């Protein structure tokens, strides 16, 4: 009976997984078909592998866009975490005047629609004369902070206070406590948040579109648009580009997961 239950549950999850996966599977299959066929017979399976889309995507500098996206994403995420962790720690653990007000203030950042701030941010960027990369990394960090602080704070609050008190008795400073106690315990949370931010930045369009001037600095979502013209689009190349963009990320994520689980088992929660 218990076995049947498990099988039923596993089957249900597998089915759900298939539903979630179908569009992606379609994308990968579609990337091996001539772009024109996609609307003639959208749901057919290709008879033979058609690789021209990948050639077109490569010629469209998809490799460069991948590199740019990787660089921008990694830098932004590292900065976001480095800035957010101390802030989240302070909000979670220290009582200081105005903490609620400051937290609420930071939370307002969650609320701002990107399109509303394009013009002032563009002005800011031109005034600062920052390069294309910094022009988007700056806003990415600022807009990534609220969610990260919010989530890390929520996790930090759950960490038993005794650990911290013990460390303080040992004479550890706050930064040390944060670095050697909170961060290891919260590693799954930090990894989770890092993955969210990476996924968001990887796909972010409005800022990248408006703030990056030079074609050679385009990130992937902007680069993909260069296959989409006024009245014509190379859908084959777009699907190939999407496949190239998504698959490495999924593999990376699969690899990352092991660390999340290890971080959990190695954690100080006994």
């Amino acid at each position, binding site marked *: 009976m218990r076995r049947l239950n498990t099988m039923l549950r*596993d089957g249900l*999850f597998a089915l759900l*997984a298939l539903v*979630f*996966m179908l*569009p*992606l599977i379609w*994308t990968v299959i579609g990337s091996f078909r001539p772009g024109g066929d996609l609307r003639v017979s*959208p*749901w057919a399976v290709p008879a033979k592998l058609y690789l021209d889309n990948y050639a077109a995507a490569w010629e469209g500098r998809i490799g460069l866009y991948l590199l740019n996206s990787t660089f921008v994403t990694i830098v932004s995420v590292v900065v976001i975490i480095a*800035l957010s962790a*101390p802030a989240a720690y302070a909000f979670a653990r220290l009582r200081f005047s105005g903490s*609620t007000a*400051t937290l609420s203030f*930071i*939370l*307002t*950042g*969650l*609320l*701002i*629609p990107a*399109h*509303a*701030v394009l*013009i*002032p*941010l563009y002005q*800011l960027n031109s005034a600062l004369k920052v390069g294309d990369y910094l022009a988007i990394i*700056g806003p990415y960090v600022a*807009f990534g*902070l*609220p*969610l990260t*602080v*919010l*989530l890390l704070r*929520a*996790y930090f*609050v*759950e960490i038993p206070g005794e650990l911290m008190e013990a460390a303080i008795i040992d004479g550890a400073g706050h930064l040390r406590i944060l670095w050697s106690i909170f961060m290891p315990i919260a590693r799954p*949370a930090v990894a*989770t948040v890092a993955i*969210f931010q990476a*996924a968001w930045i990887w*796909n972010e*369009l409005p800022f990248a579109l408006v703030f990056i001037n030079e074609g050679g600095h385009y990130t992937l*979502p902007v680069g*993909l*648009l260069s296959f989409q013209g006024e009245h014509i689009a190379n859908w084959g190349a*777009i*699907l190939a580009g*999407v496949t190239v*963009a*998504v698959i490495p990320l999924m593999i990376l994520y699969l690899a990352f*997961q092991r660390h*999340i*689980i290890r971080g*959990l088992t190695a954690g100080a*929660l006994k």
Partner: protein
Amino acid sequence: MLPAVAVFAFYITYPLVHTVVLSAYSWSALNPARTWQGLGNYAELLDDPVLLTALKNNGWWIVLSLVIQLPLAMLLAVGIGSALRRHRILRTVFFSPLIVPAVAVGLIWTLFYDPNFGALNSLLEALGLHGLVGGWLGDPRWATVCIIAVSCWRYTGFHMMILLAGLQAIPDDIYEAARIDGASAWRTFRHITLPLMKRIVLVDALLITVGSVKIFDLIWVMTEGGPNHASEVLATYMYRSAFSDDRMGYAAAIATVMLVLTLIATVIYVRLTGRGEEEAAAA
């Protein structure tokens, strides 16, 4: 914390103030002339039938997203977190829609919903359900629901991950103890998991709410807010006012309305968690 606040203040506060101030003017990005409107833009918003539609749709987005995504994400998190822990691939699968760029999401789903040769209508016809065959994204009654379904596909995995991280923070021995006591799975969930996850669930609910108020890209790539404004939300209407109708001041007023709405949600959140902390302190 200071550097965080500094970066934040720099990149967010200035644009924020800019937006609120300019909502009191009538201006266009193309014209240096600005005229003071005071609350004129807001007065006009009150009379605007499209704004009403947008507000109603945002309401649907919030309610349906909360009702569908939160429980589904919890189910997936608990399922994956316990029995299917080894199935790392599954977790990746549920998360994967989030990393598909919006332009591809638009293509895939407009092909799925296409009234003439889309998969949905083909499937219904194959099942003999001719009465259900519809215009989907072109049908004002269905357009919003159709896009919300796509949003659930895209974001449930994201929320699953948030809950999962919270779930993993619950020590195993608590469950061990419950198992020895012979508690059923539901009881364990109800009396151990849920209370311990309260804060994370609240954070997640806040994220869903705020995300639903700000939702833009999925709608823009699928219907652009149409047909005849049927799937319009605040963000698409703001975008249209700013960059198509050239009414920056009016758009800023819509943005301010969005800000106020999300601010209310945040205040509720801070109140709820604040109370939780006081209880904890009292205990």
